[in-house]
């Protein structure tokens, strides 16, 4: 490990640190001296935590293995990653959870709410937690509200985090945010109400059951507003936005690049501004990568047929820093909070003394030489990016 002292802008939201220092990097950071503002280029921040990523393994190792996922995560500055249960088989079984935990110590497992993700029988939450699952999640929480209600009641308020995706399935049968762009491009639209109806429903279920819920993948202004009001009322909720929604908007679909097909679909500039304002005032707690690896054959299809999602673990910090912090749309400390203390709080993880040394000025090209992910599913493939993770403590 590099023992040479480095001059950095040190950001640590857990301690409210945002200062420029000369520091010795090691297992423990040793600050040598404070430096004047604007004298440094590199940034030192805590190891990032991803609240939800998709793993190919088990079942689709051609998309991503746990090994490639964790290598990519590390290269992207993520010290810990939680994966979603939509693998094959679905993560609903204690033996699968303990096997996964053995594969990578920094991997957290979000188990399915129901057996086989079928929405019929509840999983044995107690056994899954004992096997090492960190929490539970469902992408179709609105399909059967009694089921979701009973799950929340059964689990109770202090057992484990529950992540629900607010999307009304029958209103969301489209591929682009409904509006002028979807109309012009001839893509089936999804109205914002597919999300806001679901947000309100989930908020009501939290009120009914008293069990805290994290709302995933917010994509519109109205959702942020409803959650802001609910938080002010004291409802035990947190929420997150997927990184892609802070980087892309619906009008980019004019390229019909299937890598821009995500779910929920990208919103407008107003939505993006509202999500950023939510991050700044604490309404939005977390930025998740929602890393979604697909093979080239799966993703290089007509836009409307493409499976949703893009790879993001290795791109998140450079892209978010370049497009949000440098453009002054988001303060550096707010960005780092949403990638570190935010997800730690949701998952109930202790603080860590890991660190990442990031150089926002270095440029590099996203391709198979630079990226560790097995998937090329990103609109940034082949493009030049700014910002590079130079070193990590993990």
């Amino acid at each position, binding site marked *: 490990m590099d023992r040479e002292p480095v001059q950095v802008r040190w950001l640590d939201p857990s301690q409210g640190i945002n200062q420029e220092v000369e520091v010795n990097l090691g297992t423990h950071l040793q600050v040598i001296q404070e430096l004047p503002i604007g004298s440094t280029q590199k940034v030192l921040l805590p190891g990032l935590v991803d609240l939800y990523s998709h793993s190919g393994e088990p079942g689709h190792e051609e998309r991503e293995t746990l090994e490639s996922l964790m290598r990519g995560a590390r290269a992207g500055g993520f010290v810990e990653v939680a994966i979603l249960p939509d693998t094959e088989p679905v993560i609903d079984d204690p033996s699968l959870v303990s096997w996964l935990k053995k594969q990578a110590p920094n991997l957290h497992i979000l188990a399915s709410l129901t057996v086989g993700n079928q929405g019929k029988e509840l999983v044995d939450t107690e056994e899954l937690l004992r096997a090492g699952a960190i929490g539970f999640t469902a992408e179709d929480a609105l399909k059967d509200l009694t089921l979701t209600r009973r799950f929340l009641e059964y689990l109770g308020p202090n057992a484990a985090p529950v992540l629900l995706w607010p999307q009304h399935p029958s209103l969301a049968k489209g591929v682009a945010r*409904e*509006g*002028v762009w*979807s*109309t*012009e*491009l*001839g*893509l089936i639209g999804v109205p914002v109400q597919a999300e806001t109806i679901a947000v309100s429903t989930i908020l009501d279920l939290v009120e009914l059951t008293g069990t805290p819920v994290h709302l995933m993948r917010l994509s519109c202004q109205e959702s942020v507003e409803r959650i802001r009001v609910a938080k002010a009322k004291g409802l035990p909720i947190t929420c997150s936005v997927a990184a892609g929604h802070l980087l892309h908007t619906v009008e980019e679909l004019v*390229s*019909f*690049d*299937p890598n821009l097909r995500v779910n929920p679909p990208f919103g407008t500039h107003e939505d993006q501004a509202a999500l950023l304002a939510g991050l700044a005032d604490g309404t939005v707690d977390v930025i998740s990568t929602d890393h979604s690896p697909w093979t*080239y*054959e799966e993703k*290089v*299809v*007509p*836009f*409307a*047929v493409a499976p949703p999602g893009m790879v993001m673990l290795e791109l998140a910090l450079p892209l978010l820093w370049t497009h949000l912090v440098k453009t002054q749309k988001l303060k550096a400390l707010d960005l780092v909070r949403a990638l570190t203390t935010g997800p730690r709080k949701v998952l109930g993880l202790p603080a860590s003394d890991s660190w990442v040394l990031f150089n926002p000025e270095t440029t590099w090209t996203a391709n198979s030489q630079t990226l560790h992910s097995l998937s090329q599913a990103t609109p940034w493939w082949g493009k030049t990016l700014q910002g590079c993770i130079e070193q990590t403590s993990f």
Partner: protein
Amino acid sequence: MIIVKALGLLKTVSSSWSRKHVLSLKDFTLPEYEVVLKTATSFREVLTRRNRKVPTLQGKIVVNLFFEPSTRTRSSFELAAKALSADVLNFTPSSSSLTKGETILDTARTYLAMGMDLLVIRHQESGVPTIISQDLDRLGSDVRVLNAGDGRHQHPTQGLLDLFTLCNALDPTNPRPGLLKGIKVAIVGDILHSRVARSNLYSLSASGAEVHLAAPPTLLPLYFQEFKEHGLILHHRVEPALEKARFVMTLRLQKERMGEFLLPSLRAYHRDFGLTRERLKICDPEVQVLHPGPVNRGVEISSDLMDDPVLSLIPQQVTHGVAVRMALLYLLGGGD
């Protein structure tokens, strides 16, 4: 001799053409519409001669890549390419080759390797010609891509042949877009799902026509209001759109729409929006009707109206389709 003269005129016309692909009419300029119509007028003459062939695209390969089956549009492109003396390949990929791990780009790359010059693409999903053209450009190719209809997005050659048909009805000696200035054109039917309507909106408004759209609210969302800044007027009843209209364009209504809760029944649709002689009485006395085909007789248009030789421009649309497609193939591929 006349052919030679016509081609001489074309040479000057095509030198003002710089577009590489025709994927959408969104960014078409008025001068481009003028060039297409002027060129199509010359080819219309060519098509009336005993020898319908000109040597313009001799030695060039035109590939018709029709992922979505279509007889009329493909035949029209094939005739157009053959009248220009091009070698034509028709490819309708079987669904199996595309499920066996071949991506949508692979077929186009195969023909690129065989030396094609012009690629005509139709696909049931929006955007496919766009991404294939991007891929070919990335590979450094000079292949020109022509969108022959993609999903609900665009059908530029239909938009251009409709424009030609309208202008030709107003002045057959010199059909030009300026003729449509201030002329009321009504588009009636399933606009939401129509790539034809989306192309026509651009060409008609660029020509200065007064464009009225009419459909039930489910088939004409208000987003169309913002679709194009200038002059689209939306109606959820058919009468205000038809009133004093010089031209009425009606669109095919797909029967699947009932299953999507967009309409109660075909009968209700015909009652409220179907074109009949009776309904056309409030139009301009010289009104004429267009339809991109294939027609659902008795649904969007009554059978007798469709076959009326005075009122219906449908046969002319088909005839002009060949001349307009010749014009586009010529402008894209014959300029050198």
